[in-house]
């Protein structure tokens, strides 16, 4: 249990009399690709913000990378990477400057930043664009760069909030190649998406409905359980079932 990247028990967040996240309990193993699904407004973002140490829970417990989300949020922030759908790099800095900036934020030494920059540019084949403003890159490249920067400091967990929205189908798959590669190195991936084919790429999936986790299993397990041909069918059955 201590080896798990994320452990939550009855994690709850209320805003006034509205319960956004309602007693969710789950575990994510180290190196697992965990899909965190749910309809708009189901409570995914709230749960994710608590796990990242950005929002204090109303009740319940959770540990992320072994740290408590009430008392050790600063340690958590150092051990995680985060990438949102809304592009989170600085558009008016160059590719290289962005890498340098985030490397500094994460406390990497100059030598580490130099080495990481070289590796990252080679991996993404962005050497020629290193001096270009990020604003000049196509969306798909930005998203790949954004992911690579989110794992620059070798975090044990990376949170991805709809990382592939609007990205073309080839780049979307290249993005998942990066995810697989990181998971293969032992990084835990916690990802939300509206593409149900991407849900299939996850080791396990949870589906949130109205603040609660309604289902949690492997994609094939869920399809069997709901007698569905695809994850899209599973999702529609669950999200429609609400009163």
């Amino acid at each position, binding site marked *: 249990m201590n080896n798990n990247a994320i452990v939550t028990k009855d994690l709850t967040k209320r805003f006034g009399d509205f319960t956004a996240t309602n007693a969710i309990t789950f575990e994510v193993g180290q190196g697992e690709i965990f899909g965190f699904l*749910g*309809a*708009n*407004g*189901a409570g995914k973002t709230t749960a994710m913000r608590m796990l990242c140490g950005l929002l204090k829970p109303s009740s319940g417990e959770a540990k992320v990378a072994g740290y408590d989300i009430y008392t050790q949020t600063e340690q958590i922030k150092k051990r995680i990477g985060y990438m949102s*759908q809304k592009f989170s790099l600085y558009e008016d800095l160059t590719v290289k400057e962005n890498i340098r900036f985030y490397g500094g934020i994460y406390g990497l030494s100059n030598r580490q930043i130099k080495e990481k920059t070289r590796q990252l540019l080679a991996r993404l084949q962005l050497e020629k664009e290193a001096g270009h403003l990020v604003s000049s890159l*196509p*969306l*798909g490249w930005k998203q790949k760069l954004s992911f690579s920067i989110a794992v620059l400091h070798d975090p044990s967990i990376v949170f991805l909030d*709809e990382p592939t*929205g*609007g*990205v*073309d*189908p*080839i*780049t979307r*798959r290249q993005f*998942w*190649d990066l995810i*697989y*590669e990181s*998971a*293969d190195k032992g990084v835990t991936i916690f990802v939300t998406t*509206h*593409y*149900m*084919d991407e849900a*299939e*790429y996850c080791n396990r999936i949870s589906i949130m409905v109205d603040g609660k986790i309604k289902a949690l299993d492997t*994609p*094939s397990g869920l399809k069997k359980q709901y007698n569905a041909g*695809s*994850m*899209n069918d599973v*999702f*529609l059955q669950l*999200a*429609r079932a609400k009163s």
Partner: protein
Amino acid sequence: MQPIIVENIHKSFGDVKALHDISFTIGEGELFGLIGPDGAGKSTLFRILATLLLADEGNAKVNGRDVVKEYRTIRREVGYMPGRFSLYQDLTIEENLNFFATIFNTTVEENYELIKEIYEQIAPFAKRPAGKLSGGMKQKLALCCALVHKPKVLFLDEPTTGVDPVSRKEFWDMLQRLKTKGIPILVSTPYMDEAVLCDRVALIQKGAIMQINTPANIVAGFGMPVWAMKAKNIYRLIHDLRAFKGVLSCYAFGEYLHVTLDTELDDVKAYLAPLGHEALEIKPAAPGIEDAFMQLMQEQNELT
């Protein structure tokens, strides 16, 4: 008369070619989809057709009227739902709808028949400010506002982007019913699976149309067998397949990989056999719009 005619439209922003030689027509009562990722040029095209932007070259007619010379008339006759939510966040549902009706010199009551079915779904929240609505509800309100003056043509720019699968399905069900009322609809989306819900689609990427056809014909034109493959360690399978010369393309498609070959399947099987993949499964697959889109993208990339 064709409700929308687009002829050889070009548009650049500085060095960036946003649209390159775009031509197509949309027929009476047709539901026509512009399918492509962010940055393909979809919104630029909408803005030209909605008379908010001038093309560098080419002509376009909406409802028989020229987008440059007759822009005032066009603005009265089209319903346009832009990609960004652009209603008044601090006005309520009711106030927004009345506002748009008034702007177009009409009343909500006059054309209520057209929006009734959609409006009834959000009517319980009529007094709520638009800024406080969920994504799905905002989208329904925006559609009502675009329809309240009974437009002759409807432009919907990425109405389902960032929306969950349930709300997306509901939205497309609404479009199918609107279509039966005879309004031609031009709709854009980055979700390839939505293409099959259109009568015809244009696949657009990097400012150019790669193909225009019915979804069925696009898939039929794929022209080569597709194999679905999976194994216990799918990441390793991808790598092994891509390393093999006879594999033309290998992409993840949900649970399986979609693989195309320029060699016999038996060669691939013989190649994979000694690599020790557990639970290896290979079966024929039916290509979809996304397969076709990626194939066309690759052809386009090879040309440029």
